[in-house]
């Protein structure tokens, strides 16, 4: 179904998805600011610090106890990267009012709780509380440090950084360890004020029977901000093709992680549906060209897959291989991309990729979290598309458009995380 979109005030809107299929209601609030090295850390700590407490529940334990009473309601904080923007996101979810054992209006209470957390947080002398700040600084720094633990994700991130060096896209959405270390309660308070004043705000309401008091609660909060002047969002990408950047880093690992980063050379109005389908054909499914050839035919790896982010114009191909086979895997990956560029794929392969991609988009609406993320991902767009509309766009893509899409990507970086022992 198509959600209704309503402007709350300048630079702030609410998307209402009236849906009675779920047992839960969900409220998402996203604050978007440009993603920059200098401000990333101070912005990133905000959602974590804000969701710790509120005026009525002035400690984390008290707030959590209250959430447990609201049938295990959950308030979560995170930071997303939306193209060149940083989105500070707070999400509240709980079982829907229909399932409350004592008839409580849980959703209304959560909306009020969110308003109070975000717009009137606990502060002392105009700054965040010292002990809360220290705790969240430590947690955020540890979150950044622990990125090294998951080698596949780490290698993908490193490849993006190499590929998009100097762009907002390459900045870690959680900021940097040094940046977090330097944060002060006063500095964070200034970042909070700036966020309320300057951020583009997107609220998503997913409840049965409409959005209730949610728009009013956020309206109340936003209107209390003096001198609001939201940033203008711009989804244009600035990127110039250059030499392929090769980086190999070594760590004590058994399996090498190869990540090849490609960029869309045509940055003005790319054919999104064609890129999505090209990605499915190349490496988005277990019957894709990469899976069939790199894994099944050559038995080089357990995974070899591709992913496409339209917001950065980036396509990544990654595989976990033995280091001595990395060259072979790389050749085969390039050979498969070249095959698409030459139109050397069967109608069956094309139609299969199309069916899978359509299936993938049509499934998005069956989970509240994936649907909310779908719309947050469109925060930069002037018009929103439903997942069903995206599926329909893919259904109309011709093989020629896929070939055109494949021809417009350029290899920009080859990153490898390899073991210390394999090569001396």
């Amino acid at each position, binding site marked *: 179904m198509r959600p209704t979109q309503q402007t709350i005030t300048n630079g702030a809107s609410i998307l209402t998805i009236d849906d009675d*299929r779920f*047992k839960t209601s969900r409220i998402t609030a996203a604050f978007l600011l440009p993603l920059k090295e200098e401000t990333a850390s101070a912005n990133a700590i905000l959602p974590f610090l804000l969701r710790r407490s509120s005026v009525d529940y002035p400690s*984390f334990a008290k707030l959590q106890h209250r959430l447990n009473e609201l049938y295990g309601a959950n308030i979560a904080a995170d930071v997303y990267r939306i193209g060149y923007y940083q989105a500070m996101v707070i999400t509240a979810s709980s079982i829907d009012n229909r399932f409350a054992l004592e008839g409580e209006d849980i959703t209304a209470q959560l909306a009020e709780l969110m308003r109070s957390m975000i717009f009137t947080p606990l502060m002392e002398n105009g700054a965040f509380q010292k002990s809360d700040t220290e*705790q969240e600084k430590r947690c955020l720094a540890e979150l950044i440090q622990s990125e090294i633990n998951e080698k596949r994700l780490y290698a993908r991130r490193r490849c993006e950084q190499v590929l998009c060096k100097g762009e907002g896209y390459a900045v870690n959405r959680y900021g940097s360890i040094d940046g977090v270390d330097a944060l002060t309660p006063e500095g964070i308070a200034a970042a909070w004020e700036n966020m309320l004043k300057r951020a583009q705000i997107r609220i998503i309401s997913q409840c049965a029977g409409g959005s209730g008091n949610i728009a009013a609660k956020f309206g109340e909060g936003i209107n209390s901000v003096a001198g609001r002047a939201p940033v203008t969002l711009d989804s244009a990408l600035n990127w110039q093709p250059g030499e392929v950047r090769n980086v190999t880093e070594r760590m004590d690992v058994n399996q090498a992680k190869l990540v090849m980063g490609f960029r869309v050379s045509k940055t003005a109005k790319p054919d999104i549906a064609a890129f999505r389908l090209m990605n499915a054909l190349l490496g988005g499914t277990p019957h894709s060209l990469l899976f069939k050839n790199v894994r099944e035919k050559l038995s080089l790896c357990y995974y070899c897959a591709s992913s496409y982010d339209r917001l950065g114009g980036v396509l990544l191909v990654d595989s976990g291989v033995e280091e001595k086979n990395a060259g072979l895997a790389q050749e085969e990956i390039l050979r498969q991309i070249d095959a698409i560029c030459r139109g050397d794929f069967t109608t069956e392969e094309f139609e299969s990729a199309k069916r899978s991609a359509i299936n993938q988009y049509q499934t998005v609406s069956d989970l509240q979290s994936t649907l909310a993320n779908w719309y947050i991902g469109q925060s930069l767009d002037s018009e929103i598309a439903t997942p069903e509309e995206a599926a329909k766009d893919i259904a109309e893509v011709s093989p020629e458009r896929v070939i055109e899409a494949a021809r417009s990507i350029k290899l920009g970086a080859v990153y490898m995380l390899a073991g210390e022992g394999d090569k001396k």
Partner: protein
Amino acid sequence: MSGVWQEIFNSQTGETIYKAVHPTGLPIFVCPKKGYRSTYAVFGTKYGSIDTAFYADGGSTPTEVPAGIAHYLEHKLFENEDSGAFERYAKTGASANAYTSFDRTAYLFSCTENFVDSLEILLDFVQAPYFTEENVRKEQGIIGQEIQMGLDSPFRRVFYNLLKAMYHKHPIRIEIAGTLESIAQITPELLYGCYYTFYNLHNMVLVVAGNADKDEVLSVADRCLKPSENKHVKRAGVDEPAGVVQKRIVQKMPVAKPLFYLGFKDYIEDGISCRTAGELACANVLLEVLAGRASNLYNRLMENGLINSSFDADYFDGPGFGSWIFAGESADPDRVAEEILREIDALRREGIGKASFEAAKKALYGRQVAALNDIETIGDRLVADYFAGREPFSAVDAAAAVTLESVENMLKSSLKEEQMAISIVSPEI
């Protein structure tokens, strides 16, 4: 046709599940979800990595097989004589996958179109094994890389190391995929032997959730299921001692800061049975009271800088095993263990407060209701519950029925220091 269906209605949530036993012996569950666009189907066998020793056909001596065979079989079933399952699914657009866990293997897909065709593929390929010397050998490279990937995952290492530290004999101490050495012993004959033992329809279950019509499911089952002999396969019970193997296990790996898994082992007398829904609900409420985000323990550990937001507590259970696991990252995991022991002690002495019990119970109830949003969760839980002998929806009902007394009784009998072990993965040792 619909006369064969048993209707299981849950008044707390308004959900209905239909159950039938197909004449071939296969139990089928269907959970229709109104308004959902997609359908999730899962075809599972009660055969997991722990089944390395079993009694087939009422025999008295157990058959023993190499570790990792259930998982190997899962990979190989995707390849039939004339085509691969993924290529067949490619024609329907379904998103297909499979997984092997400690106690089961499941083949699944989700789709928004061509459900009947996809279900036919699912039932068909799982019933059509085709193993040759060549295709079995080829898989060794792929699974070998999967194992290598697991060796590089600190989360898997810290978890499996804990199981090794806690369990003397129970096969959960062996990794699901096996080892490079154990998979090298796998042959087509061994795969066929295990296949015909465990993949008989009496030992399996089919679950469909989402946009589904139960009679449509049944008619596909009528067309595609082949009668199979009931092999009366039985898991070999394990004579697992109550105590742990070692108190502490440490491995060095490139991680940011030490990861820990702290476990308290429960003694399961017959070495084979599973926990009931009531016991699991009690355990989960107890964990929420003890270590949930509203707890004294969680907040104290956080304030003292001993844990971060990755901290979690869970009850980990299956046939013949059950343990309480506290996991996270910490500069000082041993101090976390001390604090947890101290808190357990305090809770035993002072009792569980009524308010914190009530809040924890409501939280568990809310989570169980919320889990019914997701058709994949519904499908996977129905499979797990069926194999463990638990009724559909029993988790929701049990959460609503937990009493303070039962939680206090559980606290008395479990979480003992002598049954505790800690596993640490550290950048330095």
